């Protein structure tokens, strides 16, 4: 059965968190950050119950369907486990055995509980038990694409995805035009290639069935070889970069980046923000900075391109959190850190929200000032 109903807990974080951000509640959550597993199990139970209640409310929810599709990227191992009927906790145990970061050799009870919660999320998104990971991914994408965006935030997400697609296409076009291509017409190329074939056949005919060649035949071979070099040389010389076309596409890319930057100033959707910012503030190494990146460097005095990329990985999620993106202990971000779904696994991340984890463990004291500077720049420039 194909359904448009986003059914997992990740979706629900959206409906829960689009309510006005309550700072007091958040602090209360932080205070009870690392809970005993029994409490977490209760929490997980509550989440699952509410998921059933909210099912109809979140029907046709464009953003929830998008987040489900994105979250499913974390489910590859789990789908494999379902198909092989392997105990998911064994998989987690194996990850710990190969995890050099942790001194602990096996997961804590808290990590086991969170892992089972993650497995439930993945299971909730599988329609047919026999479908593999890719089939499920494709179905989730189709479900998302079949929903029409309604609210302002949903429309912004659609717009951000479209702008990202257009930018990628322009980049591909630029790479293509930067390659050398022959400036000869297809007819001219065909004619030269025919000549090459003819000369090659003539050359092989000289050898045909002969053990020894006469002086005249050797001379003929030399002439054919020269002719082949000459014809291949014409083709080689005709390969040039179309600088004019490259310049046109480069100008289009810059224009598109300006449009993306303008759009960013109006964005209220954290999903749209993450997509646009991910493209705008990425450093392209060994080439001149885009105007957007040059402005970041000038204003923040953070000059190192590679460092800006490192800061992007911390600052952009923090901004998204401030825009009500799910950042609590059960969010995609935190489950990923706690269980090592995308990056290293951190026992210290389990049960914390993103801000607590970042500021009390993950980010070093000497990096905080730079994170703050970059964060403030984004807030002042783009109003987030």
């Amino acid at each position: 059965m194909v359904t448009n109903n986003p059914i997992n807990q990740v979706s629900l974080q959206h409906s829960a968190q689009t309510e006005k951000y309550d700072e007091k509640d958040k602090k209360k959550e932080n205070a009870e950050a690392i809970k005993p597993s029994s409490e977490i199990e209760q929490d997980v139970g509550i989440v699952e119950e509410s998921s059933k209640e909210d099912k109809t409310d979140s029907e046709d929810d464009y953003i929830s369907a998008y987040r489900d599709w994105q979250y499913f990227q974390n489910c590859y191992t789990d789908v494999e486990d379902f198909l092989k009927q392997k105990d998911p906790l064994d998989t987690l145990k194996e990850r710990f055995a190969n995890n050099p970061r942790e001194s602990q050799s096996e997961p804590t009870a808290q990590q086991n509980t969170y892992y089972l919660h993650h497995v439930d999320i993945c299971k909730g998104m599988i329609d047919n038990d026999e479908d593999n990971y890719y089939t499920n991914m494709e179905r989730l994408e189709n479900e998302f694409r079949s929903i029409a965006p309604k609210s302002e935030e949903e429309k912004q997400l659609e717009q951000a995805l479209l702008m990202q697609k257009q930018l990628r296409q322009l980049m591909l076009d630029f790479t293509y035009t930067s390659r050398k291509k022959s400036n000869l017409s297809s007819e001219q190329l065909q004619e030269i290639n025919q000549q090459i074939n003819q000369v090659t056949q003539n050359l092989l005919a000289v050898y045909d069935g002969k053990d020894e060649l006469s002086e005249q035949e050797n001379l003929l071979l030399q002439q054919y070889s020269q002719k082949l070099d000459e014809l291949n040389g014409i083709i080689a010389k005709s390969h040039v970069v179309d600088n004019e076309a490259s310049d046109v596409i480069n100008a289009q890319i810059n224009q598109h980046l300006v449009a993306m930057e303008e759009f960013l100033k109006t964005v209220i959707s954290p999903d749209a923000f993450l997509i646009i910012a991910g493209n705008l503030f990425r450093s392209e190494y060994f080439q001149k900075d885009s105007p957007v990146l040059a402005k970041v460097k000038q204003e923040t005095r953070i000059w190192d391109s590679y460092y800006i990329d490192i800061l992007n990985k911390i600052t952009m999620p923090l901004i998204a959190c401030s825009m009500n993106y799910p950042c609590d202990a059960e969010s995609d971000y935190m489950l990923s850190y706690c269980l090592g779904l995308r990056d290293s696994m951190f026992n210290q991340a389990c049960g914390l929200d993103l801000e607590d984890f970042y500021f009390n463990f993950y980010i070093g004291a000497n990096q905080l000032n730079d994170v703050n500077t970059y964060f403030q720049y984004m807030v002042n420039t783009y109003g987030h």
Partner: protein
Amino acid sequence: MAIKRLISAVLMLLLVFLAWYIYTQKAGKEIVEHQALAREKPQFTELNNKNLVVKTQQEENKVKPLDAPKLEEVVEIVYDDDPVVNASMLLKENILCIRHLSDSKNYVEYLQKFKSRLDKNQQQFYEKFTRHCQELNKQHPEYHLTDKTKLNQQKNKAQATSLWGRIIKGEQQVGDLSDSEIRDLLSSGDLNILTEAPKYLREFYQEVVHWDLESVLQNHQYDYVAYIQNYAHQLYLCELGADCSPYSSTMVMLCYLNSRGCGLDYNSYIQTVLTAGQQADVKLALGYLKSQYQ
């Protein structure tokens, strides 16, 4: 005669023990002090420059290494003018000149494209650096800077005469070395070894140095710690006497990466391009690396 030999052996053992004792005391002290300095974390909302863990000159003097006896004098000689090591270093030190002077058609085209993507400041530096390489090539034709194949052949044909040379040649598997053998290599104080140590002793740097540095810096973002480690390692090489001038391969790469770095030596780059926080972390990481390398 036998007694004389015995006395010599005992004296040698005492010397090794003394050197090891001073080394371990110093290393332990440095790590404890670095960790103490990095322990306090400011809150996000209260940040200002005062919170940065930048050591004062007084603190700097306090953790400055003692004049320990040179360990390389008492441990096995691991590098003694090995032709493999020499050839490898020649390639490494001049790799950017080799690329700039390459007459391979494909590479010339690649460089043209590369240059066109740089900004004006970087392009001007590119021109100056190319002239510098041409001059170097004239002064040292024996370097064969225009012929990388020849340089590689020299390296491949050379016979390794030291442990480090055998590691470079792949005749000695790094995985077969004991922990103390790796530490002997790192504490040899040899620029040739330390320059390429992160490449050949990758596992040690990933599994020991990296995790130690996460504790020293109290930072757990993998990429950030690895990147600070690279800066600190290079700073140590500069202190050992490596070429860190504006036309060194390291600095030219940094210029092409960050335009503000063009024309700077390594120390100036650290002070000009890195933020105060990055500089503080590089100092902490350098302190830790010194405890490993000395």
